[in-house]
């Protein structure tokens, strides 16, 4: 029974082609109608497909043909839907649709309208391919494709140098991760002879534990290297904050809700591998936890509203990675879903603020905006309480599940996670208070955004508030291995209390006692500066990696290899040819007697040759 799954990614692709080819010539209305229309159709097709396939106890696979056949290796063009994919499909197309609608208002006054929507559609295509893929290679196609779209959209304002360098940074840092992913695939081909989910996973199950440990751990760690790149984990998270150079809907869709969660999805998808590699799982969980904490602390000190939320994204991705790392795959995906709602909302809300202030992003130049942009304010508070884990809103449920699983794994993980939750609440509400309370500190007249922007905000706010009641973990139970563990209500109270405390501290610092924050920052001195400058990670990378590479390329590859060896060979050939020509030109004197001498020379040689060969006999 075919459900025509291919239509799901193909529709946005059609939108991309139409807008890419014709977009320059048609009006903005046509452009966004095509773009939104294709995504909406895709969303509807997802709904139709899923309702037809329910209850979806086992995966539904559709094969469209053989992609690559080489000897015993065969890679199929196969799409598959199971419950995990279903959740991802709904998130990607649903949030994607909302953000597409929002973009109409946000991008109304920007140049390159059709280009923006074309890239956005292309992104949808690749993301849906990634999600639907039934083997690692096809997943990798989507994986690379979303990376490409991310690069294109970060550098959307390509006249701005910072935007293009940010795009390059994202692309190059992701290459490191993709390198790990590629190696993981090679290793899988060597070990299992296939990249099909349906072949690899059962093969792992059948492998004896001792034999599996080494190679499976290696595969998992390499896959995780890929995930650290795409999902912005330590040590490769540095590209995501810079990626905020792109338009805000891009930050919301690609760099908060969907693409960056691809790493989480990929790990969750490969859970049979990871569960056979406990060491890799520990690494994953530790890195995730560390990322969550580090990014959250940086988020506390930033003044660019989008940077705050960017570090928040890194931090929340750390939570998801922690979740899948401790084996709570369902909880990780659940957090992925709720995060897609409230983080998209945070970004879209910040975009609405930025739009209202005609491009201002500095929190120090905002303030008091709740009177001017009430809808934005309310929806952002909804997102805030969701991310802060205030019950009964969405973040509470998903984060709590992860933290409980972490506690079950290692109690210290729970405590760091809970601390991070408190910090999260603090920095989100710090941003909200700085933005909407107090006196207005900027110039220009703020204005509320158009309905095409506020309606998506409201939709997402509703989802952020109520998303916790979606039965996602329960829905995913058949997909993932069961988590044993008891529910400890005391721990729930701790994390909730820490979240509320964070909100309270933020209110105290930025609403009740303005200026206190600066004094605290000043009293902390060096520590504050360390965090404010993001632990100097960018500078360390610059000194340790970028400069040696660039310097080495400049001196060794450029000056020595390219200019010296390669140009030397090319120019040398040309030069020697010229020298030879100069030499041979001496023969071409125009003097008949000289020519006659050369003829004689040749004749003598010919005669000697004939004599030696005895040819006249």
């Amino acid at each position, binding site marked *: 029974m075919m459900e025509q799954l291919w239509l799901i990614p193909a529709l946005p692709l059609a939108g991309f082609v139409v807008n890419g080819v014709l977009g320059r010539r048609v009006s903005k209305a046509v452009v966004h109608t095509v773009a939104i229309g294709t995504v909406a159709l895709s969303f509807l097709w997802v709904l139709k497909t899923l309702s037809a396939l329910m209850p979806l106890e086992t995966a539904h696979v559709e094969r469209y043909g053989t992609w690559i056949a080489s000897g015993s290796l065969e890679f199929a063009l196969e799409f598959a839907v199971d419950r995990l994919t279903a959740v991802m499909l709904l998130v990607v197309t649903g949030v994607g649709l909302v953000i597409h609608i929002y973009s109409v208002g946000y991008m109304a006054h920007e140049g390159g309208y059709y280009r923006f929507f074309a890239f956005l559609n292309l992104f949808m295509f690749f993301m849906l391919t990634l999600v639907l893929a039934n083997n690692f290679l096809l997943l990798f196609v989507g994986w690379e494709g979303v990376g490409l779209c991310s690069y294109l959209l970060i550098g959307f304002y390509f006249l701005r140098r910072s935007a293009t360098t940010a795009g390059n940074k994202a692309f190059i840092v992701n290459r490191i991760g993709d390198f790990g992913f590629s190696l993981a695939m090679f290793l899988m081909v060597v070990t299992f002879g296939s990249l099909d989910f349906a072949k690899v996973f059962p093969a792992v199950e059948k492998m004896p534990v001792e034999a599996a440990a080494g190679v499976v751990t290696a595969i998992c760690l390499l896959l995780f290297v890929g995930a650290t790149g795409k999902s912005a984990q330590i040590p490769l998270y540095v590209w995501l904050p810079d990626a905020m150079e792109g338009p805000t809907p891009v930050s919301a869709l690609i760099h908060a809700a969907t693409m960056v969660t691809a790493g989480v999805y990929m790990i969750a998808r490969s859970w049979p591998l990871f569960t056979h590699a406990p060491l890799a799982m520990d690494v994953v969980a530790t890195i995730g936890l560390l990322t969550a904490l580090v990014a959250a602390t940086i988020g506390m000190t930033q003044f660019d509203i989008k940077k705050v939320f960017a570090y928040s994204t890194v931090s929340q991705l750390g939570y998801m990675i922690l979740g899948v790392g401790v084996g709570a795959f369902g909880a990780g995906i659940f957090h992925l879903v709720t995060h897609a709602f409230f983080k998209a909302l945070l970004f879209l809300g910040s975009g609405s603020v930025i739009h209202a202030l005609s491009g201002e992003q500095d929190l120090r130049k905002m303030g008091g905006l709740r009177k001017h942009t009430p809808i934005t304010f309310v929806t952002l508070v909804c997102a805030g309480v969701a991310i802060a884990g205030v019950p009964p809103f969405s973040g509470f449920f998903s984060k709590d599940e992860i933290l409980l699983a972490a506690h079950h794994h290692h109690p210290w993980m729970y405590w760091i996670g809970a601390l991070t939750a408190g910090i999260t609440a603090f920095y989100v509400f710090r941003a909200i208070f700085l933005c909407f309370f107090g006196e207005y500190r900027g110039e220009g007249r703020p204005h509320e955004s158009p309905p095409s922007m506020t309606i998506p905000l409201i939709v997402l706010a509703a989802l952020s508030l109520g998303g916790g009641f979606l039965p996602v973990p329960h829905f995913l139970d058949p997909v993932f291995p069961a988590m044993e563990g008891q529910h400890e209500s005391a721990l729930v109270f701790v994390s909730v209390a820490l979240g509320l405390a964070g909100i309270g501290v933020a209110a105290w610092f930025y609403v009740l006692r303005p200026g206190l924050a600066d004094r605290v920052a000043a009293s902390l001195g060096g520590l504050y500066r360390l965090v404010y400058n993001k632990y100097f990670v960018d500078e360390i990378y610059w000194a340790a990696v970028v400069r040696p590479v660039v310097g080495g390329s400049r001196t060794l590859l450029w000056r020595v290899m390219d200019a010296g060896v390669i140009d030397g060979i090319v120019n040398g050939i040309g030069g020697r040819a010229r020298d030879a020509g100069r030499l041979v030109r001496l023969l071409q004197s125009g003097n008949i*007697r*000289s020519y006659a*001498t050369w003829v004689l020379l040749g004749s003598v040689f010919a005669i000697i040759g004939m004599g030696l060969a005895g040819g*006249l006999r």
Partner: protein
Amino acid sequence: MDTFLFLIFAAIAVGCGVIVVSQRHPIHSAISLIGVMGSLAVLYLLLGAEFIAATQVLVYAGAVMVLFLFVIMLLNAGVEPPGGKSWPVRLLGIPLLVVLLGVVSFLIRGWIPVKETVVFGSFTGGGPRDVGGALFTEYLLPFEIVSVLILVAILGAVVLGGKEID
């Protein structure tokens, strides 16, 4: 007697050849060239080529050399000025000639045994009858083609030497 005649006329031929090459004035060279051709005619006779010997005197020594002399006098060509511009000739000329002569002599010595001699009168197939017979039977086509060649040469000479070409 054969040897005597050969040596005399060979000496005349080589001597006149040396003069042809060594003289700076074209008239001297031309006169000496007639001497070379005349002595060669004698050597042809010694080899039994009577018709060719006659033709040599008539065509070469007579017609061709007279043409040369006319042109020399027409152009009033004088003694050539000293000095030349060709370094390859100065550098390679003499060595190459020596090598050529040495190699060719060596090859001739190798190929033709010394005891194979030429005796006057032992070959009688070189009379006009014999040559004419071969020319108008076996070599008729080349003969006719050569007549066309001569016609073309006459026309060419007339065109080139006639009117001034602008």
